[in-house]
């Protein structure tokens, strides 16, 4: 068509386009044609330029009328749409309530989890240079060139810090710091006294990390001895609103006491920081105290954390290589690595973390569940929307007859669902506010989303609202807008098979997800229960553990042990380096010789324990005997577990020789295999050496526990002053090992419950609708003699099939998910068919109760009333 226009005068393209829009619904070809013909005529008579201007003038003349028209009609229609939308919400109060509640719950969950995900992934990103800050980690390997798989550690000697900056071009800056010797030290100013926790930090600390100073200069506040930087909160507590700079604080730990001057105040530490402190004491304070000299300029004392800032040009891998090379010169087999500070919270697994951290896969799992809950809520809303739409068919018919086109109706319905989803958003925000404390408890994070300043959350909110509007409104909108006016005027015409089928599919999906989550919950809790009740091979109840944290106490551990034993409530005391719940020292690929000369390679876990270890933890000695003071040769005696004996092929292992770290040991006894690692691991070969360690475990008789602890404390404090009395119970420590799993269980449980709730709300609405549609049928059936029971069965059957089907789908899905989850455990509970049956039964029961509200009412109704219904 446009071929003929080549090399000819044509009207301005843009103007032509505008005209095209204006005349979109009025035979534009003819009108535009008229203009173009006229344009050519004018071209011939008055020239091209004049013609062009003329053409533009025509466009301008057409515009005002066009705009006025458009505005007039769109506001008129908008008014009508809003009116109808509001009227529909009010008219179907029940439906609207169910719809909005479902959506609000779904959105609230989703938003909460998004807030959580944001919080978790924002850790340590507030440092300006966070991309270039790394934590130094070391991995030791064993002697004899044997590799060890002990985890990474992050303790280093202080002398290393300046060397890092001077000897490695990749390292731009480095800081070392250590936690105070006590969890809470005393800060005293005047009469005010508070217990706070903090760090000893060197002068570079505030230059590398961004903890903004309110008072003081970041380069100098930590450079001198006897200076302290406190947080805003501490400053308020100690000095009120006065300027604290230059004020004196007397700082006290059990063995250390300094008079320090406040040199700076930092803003309170953000929640998403792995480094947490109430105060920073300058490292120089520690250095200038002679009693601490052993810590400084000494390569053998490693108790500092080191963080480095790489130069912009510095390559991480290269730096790691050079650092390892350097470390080898100090101690053979040491490997150094750099861990990005941003990865500490979600991806780090070192022996002792700065703060409790999380795992990225849990964050992912929670996000996935959040999306599922949101989807279910949308599906619900969509289902209800489709169900309700039959009632709207006539309205659409009338609109279409009056000239509405498909797009207008589409817009109307999408607009309505947007209206609903905005309504739900507000309800969701209210819910969020109510749920936040409970939610923070489950996740173990205190979330304080500041909605108005949180761009990410605002975007998520807007996105969710739009998504919900589209997801829940699009199908009814498309369905309804496609109706032919004639069909839509006949009632029930669109509850035809197509929408019914979709509705069923969606309902099956909803219930399948709900059942899956519930099965997962049950399995997780069963596994947890299994772990807690499983025979460990030792007794974890009634054991108080007192970790030794410094040298003086370490020297006096024997004294402590004997004094503890004098207490009548104490049954036994053992001083060992590990605890039976968690023995981690491990050598891998260790080669042993069997009796027949055959070589056996195995990974071996070992621990240093005293002769009371076996008794205190009630570990069974199967063969031979325990260590004993009566045998002097026991210094080179070892206890092995059954697994070692099996692997070595020893039927009678007593007295067998065992070379280990250049020493010859002999086996004095075999202990029954006990679970010395979490249930994620199988029981591996393990050897116990006869040497004392740094954990004092006290087995007490059950009874007045506070009194016993008081006695222990008194003895402890009398014996050693260098360390405060700190203790924990072995079974608490045991439970802590499974905290993440417990949390997963609770999350599954909570969200499983929520999905069931949402799904049932949908079912409730749907049942009401479907039964309402069959009112007359029920009346006729009753007139013809059907009993209440028959009618209830008839009505329930429809839903029952669907719910059963969703169970059938959920079973394998849940099975696969839980198989994967359980694979992490070496010892796992049998999933068991009854878990599935029970979970399904629960869901089926709840849904039947939901439906029965309607079925019974319908079945019990008087046919006279129902048949008169018109």
């Amino acid at each position, binding site marked *: 068509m446009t071929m003929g226009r080549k090399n000819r005068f044509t009207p301005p393209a843009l103007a032509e386009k505008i005209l095209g829009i204006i005349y979109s619904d009025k035979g534009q070809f*003819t*009108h*535009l*044609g*008229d203009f173009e*013909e006229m344009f050519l005529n004018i071209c011939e008579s008055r020239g091209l330029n004049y013609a062009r201007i003329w053409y533009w003038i025509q466009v301008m003349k057409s515009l005002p009328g066009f705009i006025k028209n458009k505005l007039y009609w769109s506001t008129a229609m908008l008014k009508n749409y809003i009116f109808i939308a509001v009227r529909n919400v009010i008219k179907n109060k029940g439906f609207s309530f169910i719809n909005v509640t479902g959506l609000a719950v779904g959105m609230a969950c989703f938003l909460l989890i998004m807030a959580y995900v944001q919080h978790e992934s924002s850790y340590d990103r507030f440092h300006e240079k966070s991309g270039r800050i790394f934590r130094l980690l070391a991995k030791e390997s064993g002697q004899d060139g044997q590799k060890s798989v002990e985890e990474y550690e992050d303790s280093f000697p202080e002398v290393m810090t300046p060397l890092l900056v001077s000897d490695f071009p990749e390292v731009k800056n480095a800081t070392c710091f250590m936690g105070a010797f006590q969890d809470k030290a005393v800060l005293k100013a005047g009469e005010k006294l508070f217990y706070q926790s903090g760090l000893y930090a060197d002068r570079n600390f505030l230059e590398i990390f961004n903890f903004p100073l309110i008072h003081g200069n970041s380069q100098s506040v930590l450079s001198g001895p006897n200076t302290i930087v406190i947080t805003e909160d501490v400053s308020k507590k100690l000095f009120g609103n006065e300027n604290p700079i230059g004020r004196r604080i007397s700082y006290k730990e059990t063995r250390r006491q300094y008079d320090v001057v406040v040199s700076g105040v930092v803003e309170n530490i953000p929640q998403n920081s792995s480094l947490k402190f109430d105060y920073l004491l300058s490292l120089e304070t520690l250095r200038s105290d002679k009693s601490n000299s052993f810590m400084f300029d000494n390569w053998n004392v490693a108790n500092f954390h080191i963080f480095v800032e790489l130069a912009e040009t510095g390559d991480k891998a290269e730096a790691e290589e050079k650092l390892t090379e350097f470390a080898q010169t100090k101690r053979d087999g040491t490997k150094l690595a750099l861990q990005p500070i941003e990865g500490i919270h979600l991806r780090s697994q070192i022996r002792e973390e700065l703060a409790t951290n999380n795992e990225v896969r849990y964050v992912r799992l929670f996000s996935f569940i959040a999306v599922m809950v949101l989807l279910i809520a949308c599906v619900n809303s969509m289902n209800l929307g489709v169900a309700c739409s039959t009632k709207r068919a006539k309205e659409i018919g009338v609109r279409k007859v009056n000239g509405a086109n498909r797009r207008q109706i589409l817009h109307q319905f999408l607009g309505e669902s947007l209206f609903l989803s905005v309504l739900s958003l507000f309800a969701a925000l209210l819910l969020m506010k109510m749920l936040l404390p409970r939610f923070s408890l489950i996740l173990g994070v205190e979330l304080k989303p500041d909605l108005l300043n949180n761009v990410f959350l605002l975007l998520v909110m807007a996105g969710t609202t739009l998504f919900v509007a589209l997801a829940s409104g699009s199908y009814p909108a498309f369905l309804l807008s496609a109706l032919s006016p004639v069909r839509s005027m006949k009632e029930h015409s669109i509850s035809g098979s197509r929408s019914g089928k979709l509705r069923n599919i969606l309902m099956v999906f909803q219930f399948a997800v709900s059942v899956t989550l519930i099965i997962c919950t049950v399995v997780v809790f069963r596994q947890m229960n299994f772990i807690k009740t499983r025979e460990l091979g030792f007794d974890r109840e009634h054991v108080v553990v007192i970790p030794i944290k410094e040298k003086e106490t370490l020297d006096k551990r024997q004294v402590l042990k004997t004094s503890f034993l004098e207490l009548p409530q104490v049954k036994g005391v053992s001083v060992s380096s590990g605890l039976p719940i968690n023995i981690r020292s491990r050598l891998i690929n260790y080669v042993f010789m069997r009796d027949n000369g055959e070589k056996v390679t195995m990974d071996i876990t070992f621990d240093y324990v005293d002769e009371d270890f076996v008794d205190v933890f009630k570990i069974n000695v199967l063969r031979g005997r325990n260590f004993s003071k009566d045998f002097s040769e026991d210094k080179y005696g070892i206890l092995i577990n059954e697994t070692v004996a099996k692997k070595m092929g020893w039927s009678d292992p007593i007295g067998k020789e065992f070379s280990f770290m250049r020493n010859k040991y002999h086996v004095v006894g075999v202990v029954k295999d006990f679970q010395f690692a979490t249930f994620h691991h199988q029981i591996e070969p393990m050897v116990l050496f006869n040497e004392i360690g740094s954990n004092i475990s006290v087995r007490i008789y059950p009874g007045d526990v506070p009194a016993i602890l008081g006695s222990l404390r008194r003895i402890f404090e009398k014996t050693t002053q260098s360390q405060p009395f700190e203790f924990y119970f072995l079974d608490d420590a045991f439970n802590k090992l499974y905290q993440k799993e417990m949390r997963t269980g609770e999350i599954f449980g909570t969200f499983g419950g929520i999905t069931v709730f949402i799904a049932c709300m949908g079912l409730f609405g749907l049942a009401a609708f479907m039964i309402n549609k069959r009112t007359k049928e029920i009346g006729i059936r009753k007139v013809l003699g059907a009993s209440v029971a028959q009618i209830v069965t008839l009505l329930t059957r429809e839903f029952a099939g669907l719910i059963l089907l969703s169970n059938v789908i959920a079973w394998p899905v849940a099975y696969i998910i839980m198989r994967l989850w359980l694979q992490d455990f070496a010892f796992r509970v049998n999933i068991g068919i009854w878990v599935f049956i029970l979970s399904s039964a629960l869901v089926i029961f709840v849904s039947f109760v939901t439906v029965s509200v309607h079925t019974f009412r319908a079945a019990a109704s008087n046919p006279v009333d129902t048949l008169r219904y018109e």
Partner: protein
Amino acid sequence: MKLLSRSEELVLLTVMKLQENAYCIPIREELIKVTGRKWSFGSVYDPLDRLEKKGLLKSYLTKPVKERGGRSKRIYQLTSLGKRSLIEVRSIQDALWDRIPSLEADTEKM
């Protein structure tokens, strides 16, 4: 049925006259020529649309025309109803004119 308005009457007459060439542009030109007044496009489109809706005119599209950027013309034709209404207006006017003595003579007097 309502009587035709003057503009409708003029348009109808023009359409009659132009026969096979009765589409917007010639109609407008003809109207301008005969009346000596300005006729915008809108003042032609409107009566054309209205007359078509009332059933006094019918229209068809021609083949695409090169001069019109490859677009068709919409050619209008009178329906029998259109013709009848023209006649009706005409007869009413004639009747009215016949009843008065002579307009020209009257104006001359004044």
